């Protein structure tokens, strides 16, 4: 196995009995052990459980009871609840928390007989863009160990990049799947809001959070999305539409597809190399039959980050009020109940989480609500409407995923606002609730660059068509980081 494996390739090897689930799992565990000291992407490794599950998967395969992902070894971000397996959210608040139930997406994967390798590191409570806010450990970028993997799903992105898992599930509130996917050279999809159940996802900002696949290829993304999407009676915001077979859309090509490149995504703050990767991608897709529209504009893009930094902290301040040292999680001692709560939250939350709770409390507080939260909610309508209008002219939007490649470890930790700006191109999709995918689009100084496609509400099939067409004509996704050691 000299090349990196994909879900699709592994599934073929399993179906054709060229490899067993146990052999496959052992090979991925070997990769974990070979690289984990350097990359540090796992909070918990469930090796024993993985071997048991692989054995069960093999029994199912022998009986001919194979689902789409049976026997595929995978990882889950540590803010998705896994029954009887530690779920820390990379926070001291939940350092010892063992959920009694599975998140709906985890339950769906369990029924498919996937193999759980462990839980991926992240920024505490998914707040951050570098995974440096983890209270558990720092994760390093497999392409360059002096760089961050991005965040908040930095553990999942780093793992998938060096084959410590065949796929992982991340969560994306303002770019937390796509930005680390771009930094680590993998594919990250944020689905349409409501397509995937949020039940069992530790809540950050409920009107923005979505769970999505982190994979090596667009094809794998389509396979994993189908397995996790769909109606859930435990999540009332989940859409009721039947989940299509996304794999069928992969080979439809881009002939006749209209791709728009908004001028705002070529802002001076964006690195030249990032812009060049978009120009090159447009050329590839044009040759594949798409038409490119360079003359479109989303003028309210400049407000998206400000809207995000009002709405997300507002919802977070409400969601995180549940951590009170009474029901679960870290508990401090004190003279009275208020003392217990205040000390619990002082000790349990890290600096970034406290900043966002305080910010959210402020913008929702009496006298400021209208000027901040209400105004942001109205600008949210304007941004959403702008996307709706632009999708009358084009089928899909293309731009860079991030303004730069992965930045240095420690580089932005002292300046929260500089850290926030790395999400400038990813937050608009969360605000509008539309699907967006980041795909490897080249390299700059040996670091991966990501290109992002955005589609209208429930336009995942368009993203897979255009993304797959691009990957059929390019080889960025076939490169592997220096830390990966072939057997």
């Amino acid at each position, binding site marked *: 196995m000299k090349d990196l494996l994909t879900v699709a390739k592994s599934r073929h090897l399993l179906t054709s009995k060229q490899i067993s689930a146990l052999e496959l799992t052992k090979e991925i565990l070997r990769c974990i052990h070979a690289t984990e000291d350097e990359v540090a992407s796992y909070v918990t490794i469930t090796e024993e459980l993985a071997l048991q599950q692989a054995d069960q998967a093999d029994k199912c395969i022998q009986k001919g009871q194979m689902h789409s992902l049976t026997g595929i070894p995978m990882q889950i971000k540590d803010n998705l609840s896994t029954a009887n397996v530690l779920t820390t959210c990379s926070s001291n608040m939940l350092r010892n928390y*063992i959920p*009694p139930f599975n998140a709906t997406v985890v339950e769906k994967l369990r029924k498919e007989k996937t193999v759980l390798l462990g839980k991926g590191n992240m920024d505490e409570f998914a707040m951050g863009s570098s995974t440096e806010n983890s209270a558990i450990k720092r994760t390093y970028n497999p392409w360059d160990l002096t760089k961050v993997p991005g965040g908040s799903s930095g553990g999942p992105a780093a793992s998938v990049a060096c084959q410590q898992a065949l796929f992982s599930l991340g969560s994306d509130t303002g770019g937390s799947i796509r930005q680390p996917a771009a930094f680590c050279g993998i594919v990250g999809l944020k689905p349409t*809001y*409501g397509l995937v159940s949020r039940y069992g996802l530790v809540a950050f900002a409920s*009107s*923005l959070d979505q769970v999505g696949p982190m994979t090596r290829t667009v094809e794998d993304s389509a396979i994993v999305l189908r397995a996790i999407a769909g109606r859930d*009676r435990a999540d*009332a*915001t989940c*859409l009721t539409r039947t989940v299509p077979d996304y794999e069928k859309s992969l080979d439809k090509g881009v002939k006749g597809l209209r791709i728009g490149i908004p001028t705002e995504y070529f802002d001076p703050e964006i690195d030249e190399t990032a812009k060049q990767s978009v120009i090159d991608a447009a050329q590839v897709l044009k040759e594949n039959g798409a038409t490119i529209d360079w003359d479109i504009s989303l003028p309210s893009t*400049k*407000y998206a980050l*400000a809207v995000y*930094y*009002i709405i997300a902290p507002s919802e977070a*301040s409400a969601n995180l*009020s549940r951590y009170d040292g*009474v*029901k*679960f*999680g870290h*508990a401090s001692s*004190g003279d*009275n*109940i*208020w003392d*217990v*709560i*205040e*000390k619990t*939250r*002082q000790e349990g939350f890290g600096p970034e989480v*406290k*900043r966002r*709770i*305080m*910010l959210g*409390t*402020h913008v929702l*507080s009496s*006298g*400021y609500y209208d*000027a*901040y939260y*209400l*105004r*942001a*909610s*109205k*600008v*949210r*309508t*304007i941004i959403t409407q702008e996307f709706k209008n632009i999708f009358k002219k084009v089928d899909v939007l293309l731009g860079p995923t991030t303004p730069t490649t992965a930045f240095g470890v420690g580089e932005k930790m002292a300046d*929260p*606002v500089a850290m*926030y700006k790395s999400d400038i191109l990813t937050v608009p999709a969360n*605000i*509008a*609730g539309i699907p967006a995918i980041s795909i490897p689009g080249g390299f700059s100084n040996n670091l991966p660059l990501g290109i992002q496609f955005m589609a209208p*509400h429930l336009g995942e099939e368009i993203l897979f068509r255009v993304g797959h067409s691009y990957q059929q004509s390019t080889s960025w996704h076939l490169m592997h980081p220096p830390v990966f050691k072939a057997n």
Partner: protein
Amino acid sequence: MAEEQSEGISIDQVRHLATLARIKFSSEEIEKMQQELNSILDPIKMLQDVDTQGVPPTSHSGGVISVMREDQVHSSYPAKDMIANAPLTEGNYIKIKEVLEQ
């Protein structure tokens, strides 16, 4: 709002927010938080320039309004499992310190 635009959030406001958010801070942390909140709020103020007259607010992007389902009886998780993570329990109850003073 007018006061905040000229001077930003004051130390007293940060202390008040800490009480509302139920987080204990040292005085050094309060000072640092004041600076950080003001540096975060500064770029956010650009939203005051947007013309939002007549624009309805969006609180949710999903478009799902009211979801109805069959009222079916189903089993729930055992109480024992659900309180297993609570720091203080008695029987199937979570125990807390006195809330209302005598």
